[in-house]
C-alpha cells in the first residue's frame, strides 16, 4: 500500500527512532528473539536435529520415525512407536566407548562387537540433539522426586508440574504470545483504522451511530464475553484472536476518527476532492498516511496489552487450550499453593514476561518519542 512507502517524514522519524538507543536496541533484541523463536523446533525439541545412522542422514524435526528405523524397541516390545533420540544418542555413545575398550585389548572382540551388534555397522553414527533437547509437551519423569523438578544441568530452568521443560515452554510460549499479539494488532488495527477512518471521514449519521455503537460495545466486559463464548465455541487460538480483536479494534477508532476529522479539514484534502478524487482515494492515498502516527505509536502498547491479556487469560484458565505452551499457564502453576516453594515455576515466566513487556514498552516509548518529539520547557 501507498502509505508503506517511506516518505522523508517517515524516514526522519525512523532515523530519530534509531538514535534513541534504548528503544532501538530493545526493538532489535525483540526482533532477533522473535525470529529465533520462529525456529523453536530446531532449538527445543526431543526429536534430534540430525541423525547419521548407518550411512543415512535423518532430519526428524518434523518427521515421525519409528524406533525400527534405528533398530530400537521399547519396553513393551514395540518398534513402531516414535524413536527415542535421547536413548539412541546414549546407546551410540555407549557402544562407541565399548568398541574403544575392546580395541585396546587387541583380542579381536572389537570385530565381534561390530558383527554381533547389527545396529552398529558403521562407526560414524551420531545424533545431534537441539540445544534444548526437550519439547514443550513431553513429560520427563526420570527424576526420583515427582515434578516440578528444580533447575539443573538437564533442565536449565527446571521442569513444570507435569515434568515438562520450563525453558522449552517459555520459548514456545514466547513465540505464541508474540505471534498472537502481532496478529491481533494487525487485525484489530486494520479493522479499527478502517472503521475509525470512515467515521472521521464520513462524519454525520454514520459517525454518530457507529460511535454510539462503539461506546456501548466498549462497555461489554471482555472477560465475561470470553467465558460465555467458551461455552459456545471450542476455545482455540483462532477464537481467542477473534474475541480479542472484537474488543481491541475499538481503541484505535477513537484516534483514527479524530485524526481523520482533523486531517480532512486540511486543504490538501479539499484540493484532492476539488479535482474529483474519489472518497476512497482521498481517504487511503491522502488522509490515511497522514493519520498513521497514533497507529504506529499505539502499536507497541497494544502488543503489550495483548501479551498481558493473553497471559492473564491463560492464567485464569480461559486462554489457549492445554497443552499449549503458555506463560500464563506457567505462572498459574507457579502460584498454586502446592508450588509456592518452586520459585523457578513462577519466576521464570515472570522474568520472561517482564523482560518482554519492558522491551516492548521501551520500543513504544521510543516510537512515541520519535514520532512526536516534545521537549519540556521551563520558563525562568
Amino acid at each position, binding site marked *: 500500500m501507498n*502509505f508503506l512507502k517511506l*516518505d*522523508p517524514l517517515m524516514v526522519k522519524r525512523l532515523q530519530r527512532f534509531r538514535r534513541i538507543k534504548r528503544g532501538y536496541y530493545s526493538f532489535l533484541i525483540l526482533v532477533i528473539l522473535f525470529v529465533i523463536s520462529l525456529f523453536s523446533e530446531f532449538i527445543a525439541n526431543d526429536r534430534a536435529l540430525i541423525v547419521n545412522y548407518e550411512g543415512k542422514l535423518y532430519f526428524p524435526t518434523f518427521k515421525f520415525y519409528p524406533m525400527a528405523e534405528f533398530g530400537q524397541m521399547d519396553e513393551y516390545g514395540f518398534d513402531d512407536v516414535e524413536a527415542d533420540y535421547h536413548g539412541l544418542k546414549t546407546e551410540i555413545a555407549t557402544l562407541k566407548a565399548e568398541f574403544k575398550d575392546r580395541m585396546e585389548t587387541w583380542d579381536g572382540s572389537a570385530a565381534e562387537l561390530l558383527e554381533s551388534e547389527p545396529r552398529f555397522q558403521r562407526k560414524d553414527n551420531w545424533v545431534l540433539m537441539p540445544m534444548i533437547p526437550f519439547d514443550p509437551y513431553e513429560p520427563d519423569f526420570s527424576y526420583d522426586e515427582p515434578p516440578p523438578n528444580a533447575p539443573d544441568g538437564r533442565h536449565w530452568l527446571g521442569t513444570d508440574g507435569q515434568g515438562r521443560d520450563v525453558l522449552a515452554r517459555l520459548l514456545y510460549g514466547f513465540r505464541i504470545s508474540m505471534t498472537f499479539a502481532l496478529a491481533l494488532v494487525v487485525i484489530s488495527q486494520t479493522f479499527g483504522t478502517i472503521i475509525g477512518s470512515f467515521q472521521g471521514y464520513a462524519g454525520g449519521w454514520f459517525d*454518530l451511530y457507529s460511535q454510539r455503537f462503539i461506546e456501548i460495545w466498549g462497555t461489554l466486559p471482555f472477560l465475561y464475553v470470553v467465558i460465555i463464548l467458551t461455552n459456545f465455541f471450542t476455545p482455540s487460538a483462532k477464537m481467542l484472536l477473534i474475541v480479542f480483536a472484537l474488543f481491541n479494534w475499538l481503541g484505535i477508532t477513537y484516534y483514527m476518527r479524530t485524526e481523520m476529522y482533523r486531517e480532512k479539514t486540511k486543504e490538501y484534502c479539499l*484540493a484532492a476532492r*476539488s*479535482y*474529483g478524487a*474519489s472518497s476512497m482515494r482521498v481517504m487511503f492515498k491522502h488522509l490515511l498516511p*497522514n493519520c498513521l502516527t497514533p497507529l504506529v505509536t499505539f502499536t507497541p502498547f497494544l502488543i503489550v496489552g495483548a501479551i498481558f491479556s493473553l497471559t492473564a487469560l491463560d492464567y485464569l484458565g480461559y486462554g489457549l487450550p492445554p497443552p499449549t505452551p503458555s506463560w500464563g499457564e506457567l505462572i498459574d502453576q507457579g502460584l498454586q499453593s502446592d508450588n509456592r516453594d518452586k520459585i523457578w515455576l513462577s519466576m521464570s515466566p515472570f522474568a520472561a514476561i517482564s523482560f518482554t513487556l519492558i522491551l516492548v514498552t521501551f520500543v513504544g516509548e521510543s516510537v512515541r518519542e520519535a514520532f512526536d518529539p516534545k521537549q519540556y520547557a521551563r520558563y525562568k
Partner: protein
Amino acid sequence: MTSPILQVEDLKKYYPIRGGVIARKVADVKAVNGVSFDLYPGETLGLVGESGCGKSTLGRTLMRLEEPTGGRVLFEGKDLAHAKGKELFDLRAEIQMIFQDPYSSLNPRLPVRDIVIEPLEVHKMGTASERLDKVVALCRRVGLKEEVIGRYPHEFSGGQRQRVGIARALALEPKVIVADEPVSALDVSVQAQVINLMVELQKELGLTYIFISHDLSVVEYISDSIAIMYLGRIVETGKKETIFSNPTHPYTRALISSVPNPDPRKRRVQVAIEGETPSPVNPPSGCAFHPRCPFAVEACKKDVPALESFTQTDDPRHNVACIRKDEIEPHFKN
C-alpha cells in the same frame, strides 16, 4: 459584451446546528445566504469580506467541496450546483482552486511530482510519461526548477509551495480558478511574487479568477471587478474603480477607510466604524449591517435590502444592497 462564464444565482449554503443525543437539527447557520453574481471570461472578481462573512464558504460551495443548500451555479450553461457523477467529475476539471495555507494544502507525504500529477491521474489524462512531461512543464511555468520535483513540501518555502499549489490547480487546464486567500499566509515580499505569477498566468492562459481575500490592497491591485460580502450576502458589486473611488454601501465605505495607509503622513484620527461583525449563528434582522451602520433607520431592521443596480455611477455592474443608497452622500476616498 461577452456572455458570463460562470453565473451564480441565489446560491445558498446553510449549516445545520444540531443538538441533543440524536443530533436533531435545531437551527441553521446561513453561511452563504442567496448570493448571485456573474463572472466574465478573463476577468478577476475580487471577493472581499471579513472573517466569517462566508466568502470562503462561497468559494468552496462553488467548487462543490460543500453541497449547496440552494441556488444554481451555471458554468457555460451547465449547472455545477446540481451536477452529479460523471458530469460533476468532468466539470471539476474546468474550475480549480488555489488554497490559502501553503503548508496544509500540500500533502506532506507526497513529493511535488506526485502532488501535481494527481489530478491528471484522477482524470486519466495521457500516458504516464505524458503526464510526467506535463508536470515538468507546469512546474517550470510556475517557476520551479525541474530538479526539485522529487522533493517533498517541507523542503520548500511558503512561496514555492504556493507555486506548487498553483501548478496543481493548472494541471487540468481549468478555465476558472477560485483562489481562496492565496497570498494572505505569505510574507509581503513573497506575496508580490505569487501575485505577479497569477497575473502572468491569467494573461497567458486567459484564466478567469475568483480572488477571495480580506486584503483590500491586494484585491485592488489584482481585480477587475469586486464583490463585497457581509454576513453571507453580497452588499455591493462593481468594477474595481467604482468600488474604490465611489464606495456606496456604508459597510464598503467603513471597510475601505479602515485599511491602514502605508504612509505615516496620512494617519487617520477617527475610527470609521465601531463594533464587530455579529455571529452568523444569530444574525441581526433586516439588513445585517444595521447595528453598526451610521445611516441606519428603522426600516433597515425590517427588510433585507435587495442587491440593486446603483445608477448614480456610470458603472453598469455597480449594484448596492442598501435602502438608503440614494440618500447617502457620495463618498470620496481620502
